[in-house]
């Protein structure tokens, strides 16, 4: 029974994974149970929406436009072979509203806002600001984590909706203005095919789930970071990797659940 025989190591690995899931779940419930401050001091949340949402607006809008451009070009190239260019609007709108809007926004969100949250909290921890707060009888979970959590959860669906809108407009610019697909057919095919509940609402629901996931991962990694420069850099990397993988896995699950029939 040496400590480094393979079976012991496998067991240790499994146990540490289960530990991590447990910590993560307890972290989530602690955040939720302290969420009262979001209602009593809403200004803290609105500051975070400003920091997380407004500052991500530019990258989201620019990416949305270009994704829309590419969808317009690529969709036209494929549809043209079957002589059904009029369906271009439908193709662009459905792909954006159902999949690309929520998913690409969440990936960019993890890179733009998630990393800054992790680094901020990790450095607060390294600089012992969190401990200082506790000494002053200020609960850092309430004061630091909860406003950032709700800021991210509120900002993410808004960003995803803006991404989809800008993307559809981008597809319209390429399809209708540049290539010359009929504008009436572009919009009417889109309105015929996109259902408000089945497509738009489920897309918004997806973006909410991704917002919770990415923000939670970012805060958790910052909170758990080793209080050293190396620890903070590792935590920031893990935010992007774990956050993006979680978004992709959840997207598959949610798509299977929502659009199965």
């Amino acid at each position, binding site marked *: 029974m040496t400590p480094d025989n393979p079976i012991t190591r496998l067991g240790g690995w499994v146990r540490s994974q289960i530990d991590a899931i447990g910590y993560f779940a307890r972290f989530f419930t602690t955040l939720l149970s302290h969420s009262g401050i979001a209602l009593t001091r809403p200004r803290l949340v609105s500051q975070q*929406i400003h920091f997380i949402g*407004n500052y991500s607006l530019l990258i989201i809008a620019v990416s949305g436009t270009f994704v829309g451009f590419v969808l317009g070009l690529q969709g036209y190239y494929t549809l043209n072979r079957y002589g059904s260019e009029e369906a271009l609007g439908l193709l662009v709108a459905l792909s954006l509203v159902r999949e690309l809007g929520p998913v690409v926004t969440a990936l960019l969100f993890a890179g733009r806002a998630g990393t800054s949250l992790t680094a901020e909290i990790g450095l607060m921890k390294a600089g012992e600001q969190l401990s200082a707060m506790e000494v002053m009888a200020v609960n850092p979970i309430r004061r630091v984590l909860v406003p950032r959590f709700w800021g991210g959860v509120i900002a993410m669906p808004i960003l995803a909706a803006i991404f989809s809108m800008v993307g*559809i407009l981008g597809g319209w610019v390429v399809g209708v203005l540049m290539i010359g697909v009929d504008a009436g057919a572009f919009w009417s095919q889109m309105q015929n095919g996109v259902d*408000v509940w089945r497509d738009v609402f489920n897309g918004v629901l997806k973006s909410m789930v991704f917002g919770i996931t990415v923000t939670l991962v970012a805060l958790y990694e910052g909170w758990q970071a080793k209080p050293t420069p190396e620890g903070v850099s590792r935590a920031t990397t893990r935010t992007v990797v774990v956050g993006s993988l979680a978004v992709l896995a959840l997207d598959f699950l949610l798509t299977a659940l929502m659009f199965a029939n």
Partner: protein
Amino acid sequence: MSRTKTDFWVGLFVLLGAVALVFLALRAGNLSSWSFAPTYTLSANFDNIGSLKVRAPVKSAGVVVGRVAKITFDDKTYQAVVWVNLEKAYLFPKDSSAAILTSGLLGEQYLGLTPGSEEVNLSDGDKIRYTQDAVVLEQLISKFLYGSAEKQGAATPMNAPKVQN
């Protein structure tokens, strides 16, 4: 940055999000085509509805006059029962007939209403008695193939003596 300035930008951000959602619902989605006019319900039995779906349009002379509300199966007659909501503004005679048609060659299926000539109109809960099933492409093709095969079968005996001559 001062408080009011932050609040202004956050307000603008949320407003932009709301505009985006309204755009997705009205311009990209079909919320604008939902009609909230009062409706009445009719039912119709079909032997085969093809791929007719709930919320498919009901058209008369090409104009949308209602939507398919639900589709059930009647295990007494082994028929499909299609329930449709028609707008109260449009009334149809009692002997009107319903047919399941396809828009374009491969388009979506819809319910077509052809008005009859009776004086009394259909009212809420009535049944449309004259119906025409969906055309199933495979059945059509097999009918055509068997039809031409039968013709050939009938033609061969008549040709056979000719060959002998």
